[in-house]
């Protein structure tokens, strides 16, 4: 695998300088503590602050809220480097604001930006996005949580589930139905709900993987929120939610091939050192071929993802093609991760089944990426419709 550290068509010297800075940040501030956080079931707040300081939390956000106004490849750098810690839950929880805060930054009032967006980007507060409901996963248009206007307030009732950073979050960006009579995509708005709001209850969810991420089910019963906490125009939330999804899917693709690479690197190091039947594992053809198949899939997923981002940044394709290719990239990258995690555990043999190898952890993290941000099936359906199939 090539060492992605020099400037090229996708990455400028600034991208690579930040990559280098992050490489040591992850090595020193994250990787040594991953096991501890996985067992704890959440990240220390200190990590959010440190990440804010180094600029991780504000990569894509404008400078007036404390961000760096970086391009999407800067986010790619962040995701690739953070993934090197080998724990998706760490990346997911630390990055929960990257889906929670964009609507506030883009459509929120000055008050909301100042009170919530800026502290989150500094790493002083934790933000989460709450869209999914127990009644329906990827189908945003079917959501049932209501926010009914009552004087200067909204009264929120309903349930949200699978909320990343949900146990610790100080602020939730919640997709709600402000017009209970509207069906489908109409009548959906985004409302900001502070974590300490009365009537908001959190329940911790236990998961197959991503243990370092505190995932919650939220229930809102008569939660009163100031009317000024409405983000953007009433009833225009659906489009904002959809906008979020495309970049989220690309980031999931980046995370998937990066995790695949961690598996590959662990398996390669083991195969080159472990001896069986008179030679190292990597000298046995069956293992050599496995390693090459892993490298090839990682490379393919990465090239596809880079190409989609680059062409989108240069406005070379119509939107439907961008959406279709994004969906296909997510499937391609999570397939690569599925394959590499499986083969890595196989190459590691008994060691791969033991807690303590990174591949064992990543093997348990495959499913969340083939489901979260749009399931493989939804991705294929979306690609088919966008391609006119």
């Amino acid at each position, binding site marked *: 695998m090539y*060492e992605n550290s020099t400037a090229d068509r996708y990455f400028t*010297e600034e991208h690579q*300088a*930040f990559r280098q800075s992050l490489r040591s940040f992850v090595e020193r501030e994250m990787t040594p503590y991953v096991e501890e956080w996985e067992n704890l079931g959440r990240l220390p707040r200190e990590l959010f602050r440190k990440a804010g300081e180094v*600029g991780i939390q*504000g*990569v894509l956000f404008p400078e007036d809220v404390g961000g760096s106004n970086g391009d999407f490849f800067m986010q790619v750098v962040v995701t690739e480097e953070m993934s090197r810690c080998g724990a998706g839950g760490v990346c997911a929880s630390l990055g929960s604001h990257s889906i929670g805060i964009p609507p506030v930054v883009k459509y929120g009032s000055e008050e909301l930006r100042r009170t919530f967006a800026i502290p989150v980007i500094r790493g002083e507060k934790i933000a989460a996005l709450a869209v999914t409901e127990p009644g329906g996963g990827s189908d945003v248009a079917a959501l049932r949580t209501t926010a009914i206007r009552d004087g200067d307030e909204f009264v929120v009732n309903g349930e949200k589930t699978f909320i990343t950073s949900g146990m610790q979050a100080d602020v939730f960006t919640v997709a709600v139905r402000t017009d209970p009579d509207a069906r489908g995509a109409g009548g959906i708005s985004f409302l900001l709900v502070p974590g300490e709001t009365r009537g908001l209850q959190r329940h911790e969810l236990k998961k197959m993987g991503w243990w370092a991420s505190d995932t919650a089910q939220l229930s809102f019963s008569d939660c009163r929120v100031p009317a000024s906490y409405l983000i953007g125009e009433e009833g225009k939330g659906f489009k904002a939610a959809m906008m979020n999804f495309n970049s989220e899917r690309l980031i999931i693709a980046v995370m998937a091939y990066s995790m695949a690479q961690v598996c590959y690197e662990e398996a390669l190091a083991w195969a080159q050192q472990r001896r069986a039947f008179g030679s190292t594992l990597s000298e046995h053809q069956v293992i050599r071929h496995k390693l090459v198949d892993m490298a090839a899939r990682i490379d393919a997923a990465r090239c596809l993802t880079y190409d989609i981002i680059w062409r989108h940044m240069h406005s070379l394709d119509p939107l439907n093609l961008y959406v279709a290719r994004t969906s296909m990239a997510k499937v391609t990258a999570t397939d690569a991760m599925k394959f590499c995690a499986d083969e890595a555990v196989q190459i590691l043999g008994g060691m791969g089944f033991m807690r303590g190898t990174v591949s064992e952890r990543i093997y348990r993290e495959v499913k969340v990426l083939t489901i979260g941000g749009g399931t493989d099936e939804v991705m294929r359906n979306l690609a088919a419709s966008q391609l006119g199939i």
Partner: protein
Amino acid sequence: MKVLVPVKRVIDYNVKVRVKADGSGVDLANVKMSMNPFDEIAVEEAIRLKEADKADEVVVVSIGVKQAQETLRTALAMGADRAILVVAANDVHQDIEPLAVAKILKAIVDEEQPGLVLAGKQAIDNDMNATGQMLSALLGWSQGTFASELDIDGDKAVVTREVDGGLQTIKVNLPAVVTVDLRLNEPRYASLPNIMKAKKKPLDEKTAAGYGVDSSPRLEVVKTTEPATRAAGIIVGSVDELVSKLKEAGAV
């Protein structure tokens, strides 16, 4: 007070170094390069002096190939104010020897008139541990080497040095050359906003010849070899077994 910090572009400390097939040195082609870690500590210390209002400008300088400007950008992203690149070689494999570096640095010190030169105690590539000392001799300045603590007290620098058997604290007159050791501080990470700002900071490009210094090597590398591979260890089952193995090996 102005602080001058020389920084060297070296092979990244994480890279497994490979010896070139002809034994003339180590392979540096397409290998990840970074700032010498001791120099990073020197840059960090200089920035802290500035933040504590004990210095008002931090100037970083690198001497080597043109690509060393990446190293300077890193220092600027950490918080240095401006940078000077002295191109002294075209081939990444040509090392500039300590005396040549010290002579070029002296010329820069004459130009810039800093109150303090803060340098790494050595570079992790050749481990010469000579440049700072040579520079102080050429300048006729005081020196404090292997600093694990540094304080500026008026026109003096108080330097705590790591020596065999403990710590030694000395007071030297400024201007001075101070070389820094590992435990002086923990360098900050270059943050993204500061990396973006670093793009706009001034970086002057000069040449060794421009300073009248001949940077061609005086030393000839006779041979470079890989370290001997270590034999595999064994796991012993008990103290008795350990003692008997040690006896077998003639160690006790």
